[in-house]
């Protein structure tokens, strides 16, 4: 499940590359079909249930626009990565396998990745592919089952899928009920589409993780703090991450009342990156937001004093962005 967070980057990039190369038409079609199918499904909650669809969620919001943007964004990179990326992407028929392969290809060194990708992409019947396929099949089945159902099924699916990665389905996490509760509360208050995804982050001490729609983040944050059952009164951490195709702000909240924590992620585009400030809710967000603005260039509308904090005011660029080029190499 954790791969989900990482996936869109290479996936979309790969997609763009594929388009540029005009090799992965099949993949793209599959994806668009999926997106359409999803869009037409009334219960969008099913979206995050299966991996590829969950990737589509942001796209679903503005499928065409985003795809175009991603394409444009990736074009420059596509040029240099076209050869390998396109090759792998093109060889994929299944959208999901393509995503997985591309992610892994991206992650590993070029040669190793190529081999791996080839093996995985080609050998669906191979050992790894077999497991993958199994997990995927299970996921897909569950996704279908959950299409009409609400958050619970989806969450179970999420953990089931996480378990799938470890090759054996695992018992639900001890934090699963909490996640269910959060999702239920949020869905109740804001409707289903406010959550872009929700899952248990197995790597991070099984912390329930929610991905919240950017536009409604401030309302959700207010709710997270003030709702009796959630009552997240403490902001432990706030920072941004650059995933090349998007920026994410990561929040780690803790509720001293309920002794429970939650991780929240809000995504934003790289151009005019902006996430609503939560400084009015948690004063502790003040400097963290300034730091995020300083190093990643994410704007926080609503922040009372948003200016650079660690770097000098006349600094050029945002150093923690992956495409940051030092203004003055000599220094």
């Amino acid at each position, binding site marked *: 499940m954790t791969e989900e967070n*990482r996936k869109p980057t290479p996936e979309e990039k790969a997609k763009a590359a594929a388009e540029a190369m005009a090799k992965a038409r099949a993949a793209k079609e599959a994806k668009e079909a999926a997106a359409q199918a999803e869009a037409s499904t009334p219960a969008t909650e099913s979206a995050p249930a299966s991996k590829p669809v969950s990737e589509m969620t942001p796209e679903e919001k503005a499928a065409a626009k985003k795809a175009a943007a991603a394409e444009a964004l990736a074009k420059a990179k596509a040029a240099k990565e076209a050869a390998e990326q396109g090759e792998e992407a093109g060889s994929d028929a299944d959208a999901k396998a393509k995503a997985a392969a591309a992610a892994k290809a991206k992650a590993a060194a070029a040669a190793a990745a190529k081999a791996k990708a080839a093996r995985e992409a080609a050998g669906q019947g191979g050992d790894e592919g077999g497991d993958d396929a199994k997990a995927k099949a299970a996921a897909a089945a569950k996704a279908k089952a959950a299409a009409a159902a609400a958050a619970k099924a989806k969450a179970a699916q999420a953990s089931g899928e996480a378990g799938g990665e470890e090759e054996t389905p695992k018992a639900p996490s001890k934090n699963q009920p909490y996640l269910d509760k959060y999702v239920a509360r949020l869905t109740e208050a804001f409707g289903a589409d406010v959550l872009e995804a929700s899952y248990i982050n197995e790597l991070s001490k099984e912390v329930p993780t929610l991905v919240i729609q950017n536009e409604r983040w401030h309302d959700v944050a207010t709710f997270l703090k003030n709702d009796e059952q959630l009552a997240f009164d403490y902001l432990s951490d706030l920072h941004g991450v650059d995933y090349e195709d998007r920026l994410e702000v990561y929040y780690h909240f803790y509720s001293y009342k309920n002794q429970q924590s939650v991780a929240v992620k809000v995504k934003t585009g790289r151009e005019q990156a902006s996430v609503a400030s939560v400084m009015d809710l948690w004063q502790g967000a003040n400097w963290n937001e300034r730091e995020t603005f300083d190093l990643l260039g994410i704007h926080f509308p609503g922040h009372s004093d948003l200016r650079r904090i660690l770097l000098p005011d006349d600094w050029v660029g945002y150093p923690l962005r992956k495409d940051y080029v030092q203004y003055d190499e000599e220094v």
Partner: protein
Amino acid sequence: MNQNILTTHVETSSDTGIRTEEMLLNVGPQHPSTHGVFRLVVKIDGETIKEAIPVMGYLHRGTEKLAENLTYTQIIPYTDRMDYVSGMTNNYVLCHAVETMMGLEIPERAQFLRLIAMELNRVASHLVWWGTFLLDLGAMGPFLYAFRDREKILDLFNELCGARMTFNYMRIGGVKWDAPPGWIEKTKEFVQYMKKELDSYHQLVTGNEIFLSRIEGIGKFDEKTALDYSLSGVMLRSTGVNWDLRKNEPYCIYDRFEFDVPTGTGGDCTTRYHLRMAEVVQSLRILEQALEQFPSEGEVLGKVPRVIRPPAGEAYVRIESPRGEIGCYISSTGKDKPWRLKFRRPSFTNLQILPKLLEGQSISNMIAILGSIDIVLGEVDC
């Protein structure tokens, strides 16, 4: 930097016709009591602070950016330099994050060594705080007594890992060195020595009326404010929140030892002073037990892959450093280098409340309040 956002107010009293003017005072970055290169622009009316704006970043080294091009093992020496007064906890939080992601088993002996090192470091850190806090308040002696005893801890570290402050002691999956022969005994002796010394510290300072009257009721805030400002560690506990990650979210092997979490309710500098002193006692208590139960043999480095590659994904862990809650966020792509590494630094977060606390205080209180927050600029600026 942005001094123009503070404007001073000139006014002529209607009664006396005397013209009064507010004044901007630039405290730092080179000031004896800012504990490093920290700067405060304060607007003062006489000696009363109307507004304070902290300016930092003079020690910013871009650790998080550097880390993106370093392997996990290579990052460890950099963490020593963040909170240089308490390097062991920084070492640990990074290793802990990576180990959590990889699901590594840490050998028993390594766990003990880590815990002992961290607790010794906590004592050392609180000693530095005690000394510098009193130095800020004008007493020179305690600083030297504290440093004499801290020196003993640093010598122990020097024997353990070959460095006094930049330890680079912990590794993913364990620690670099086993305890040298006789080290455990020496540490036991130190713990007994420190217990006695602590009493004499109280004799020297804790009863001093001048000292007590200076910090009484200064820098006061309540529980709600503390949570709102994301305060942690002693800053949080001084308002009555009984919260210590060692107890509440046990990591390492803290759940095996008996210790109390000192909690106060005053929320002022006095409470924080007493809490830190009490924490030293608790640390010594943990150390005593840990040294007693120290396993006689065993590996100190677990089975780890030759190249550390946490699975793709992200993790955020937090532990209790002497200054509060230190967190480490790793976003990994499955490579041997982190995609994004972020430290949640307690000094940085705790410092946020400073402008609020300073309002209406005098310059002398400013020093006391800043001292009681216990910041390390290497960590604030990261």
